[in-house]
């Protein structure tokens, strides 16, 4: 394969290419619109013949996330992808993955809910992705791509962060990012890690057969003694605090002189970048803060803008107002924080977001 390849591709297809190219060991999934192209593309690519990557269509999302759990427990780079209803079925597995501190990558190409909902784009799973979404105190690392290129880049970044912190990572995309076609620069093919490399990186914990290690490894989340279980919880929380301090990522567009700031992620952010331009043409100084990591939420960036006197924040989301809660917490009462959004698979135009900003913040 050539070193640098530029292609026109769908976001979902790119996930598959990026997975193979970054040396992923295994993908386990179950079809659901609007993300089925991920597995379809992998099956077409036949990576088992080139890199040796395993691709398996499971019988359910319950099975696919538990396959991810099994693979991750042996130190492999494994992933799955789905869309909202399927992600709900995976929530049990995510709790176990987080509890056992297993690295893996989960892609959620969100669609509108609740229930079976619609197959059109939505950002209604923000709470589910960022606030646990299953039993117990835990967090996923959550990345929000706003372009097909980021769909590509976040596969490798997701694995990198997942292994750095031994924590499941999620790409929280949506039907728009998954289905749209854009130019993408594909990374060169990396080899999968060898058994020796996995042993060097994951030897202290991966249950891949005792081999020549003296101590055996056991992957479990069970601890019946509350004193010990509390310690495990505290260790997890310490890890999350480290992640919050070190890994928040965001992009600021025209925020330097902004009087009003839109906070938006993923496809909403793409639309809102045009809102910023439209507002500035009308002489309204609007900026855009785009969280790239949703967990950890870039609260420090929001707080800094609030601290230097931004007059109002508008959280624009394809939902009824979820991230707005984190924006409010970060702004801490220093300025009004409002929400604008569409639901059920409806999108908004840049002008509609601008109208909402004027109505809610400039009255």
């Amino acid at each position: 394969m050539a070193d640098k390849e530029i292609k026109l591709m769908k976001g979902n297809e790119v996930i598959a290419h990026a997975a193979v190219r970054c040396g992923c060991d295994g993908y386990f999934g179950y079809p659901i619109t609007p993300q089925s192209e991920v597995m379809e593309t992998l099956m077409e690519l036949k990576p088992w013949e080139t890199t040796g990557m395993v691709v398996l269509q499971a019988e359910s999302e319950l099975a696919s996330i538990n396959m991810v759990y099994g693979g991750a427990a042996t130190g492999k780079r494994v992933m799955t992808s789905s869309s909202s209803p399927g992600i709900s079925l995976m929530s049990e597995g995510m709790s176990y993955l987080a509890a056992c501190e297993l690295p893996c990558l989960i892609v959620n190409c969100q669609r509108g809910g609740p229930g079976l909902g619609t197959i059109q784009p939505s950002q209604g799973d923000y709470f589910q992705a960022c606030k646990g979404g299953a039993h117990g105190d835990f967090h996923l690392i959550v990345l929000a791509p706003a372009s097909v290129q980021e769909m590509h880049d976040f596969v490798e970044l997701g694995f990198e962060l997942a292994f750095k912190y031994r924590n499941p990572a999620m790409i929280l995309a949506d039907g728009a990012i998954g289905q749209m076609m854009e130019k993408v620069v594909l990374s060169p093919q990396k080899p999968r890690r060898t058994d020796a490399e996995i042993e060097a990186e994951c030897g202290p914990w991966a249950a891949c057969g005792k081999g020549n290690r003296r101590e055996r490894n056991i992957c479990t989340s069970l601890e019946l003694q509350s004193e010990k279980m509390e310690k495990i919880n505290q260790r997890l929380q310490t890890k999350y605090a480290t992640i919050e301090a070190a890994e928040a990522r965001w992009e600021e567009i025209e925020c330097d002189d902004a009087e009003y700031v839109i906070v938006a992620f993923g496809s909403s952010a793409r639309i809102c970048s045009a809102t910023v331009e439209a507002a500035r043409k009308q002489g309204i100084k609007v900026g855009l803060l785009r969280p790239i990591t949703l967990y950890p939420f870039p609260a420090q960036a929001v707080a800094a803008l609030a601290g230097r006197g931004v007059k109002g924040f508008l959280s624009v989301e394809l939902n009824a107002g979820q991230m707005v809660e984190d924006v409010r917490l970060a702004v801490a009462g220093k300025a009004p924080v409002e929400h604008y959004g569409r639901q059920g698979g409806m999108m908004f135009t840049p002008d509609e977001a601008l109208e909402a900003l004027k109505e809610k913040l400039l009255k």
Partner: protein
Amino acid sequence: MSEVEIKRENLVYDKPRLITDDVMHYCPGCSHGTVHKLVAEVIDEMGLEKSTIAVSPVGCSVFAYKYVDVDWVEAAHGRACAVATAIKRLNPDRLVFTYQGDGDLAAIGTGETIHAAARGENIATIFINNAIYGMTGGQMSPTTLLGMKTATTPYGRDAGLNGFPYKIAEMLVHLDGATYITRQSVHTPANVRKCKKAIRKAFENSLAGNGYSMVEVVSTCSSGWKMSPVEANKWLEENMLPYYPLGDIKVSELPR
């Protein structure tokens, strides 16, 4: 009591090398301990200590990983066969087996079990069928016999009220991917020996890449059944075995 010294040459029974020194939590007379011993012996005799990845369930054997000295992955309730599927596919040279109870395997994990078998995954399942949810205090399981009293069938399992029990081993026979399905027990020394042979055969079948294997062990749960260990063995013979008859149910080659 006076100390009795047992001379090495008089030793007729020893703790298997791969059984750890952890104090087992199983009740007296429980089949789990016996089957653990067999699993440990077979792994040792086959020289697989360093290349085994075992998957434990949620149920009384949730702590199986404490007792058998190999690498273990603890699965969520019912998910063992999905977990094992990926482990084996990503680590094809390892022995990968699941160890599961009837609630874990035949209720909440039915889907995962059937599909792993249907795909012909090269894994083995040790299935402890004690016809009850031992761990949670003796409730009805899918394999609870009609008339049997449990915490959730206090007047006895009634088909109209609670549905019929079922034989998952016989169901699996119809799947091309399932090639070795056998039902054993450990309630007599002779049965213990037969069961051990079956476990070995299942492990060999997995390593040969010949698809899915299951060794069902018709087991006792003296606590859940509210019987002494001796009564439980007798009850097993008189009640469980007529409905869950012992022996090989399917021995075949994977269709190519």
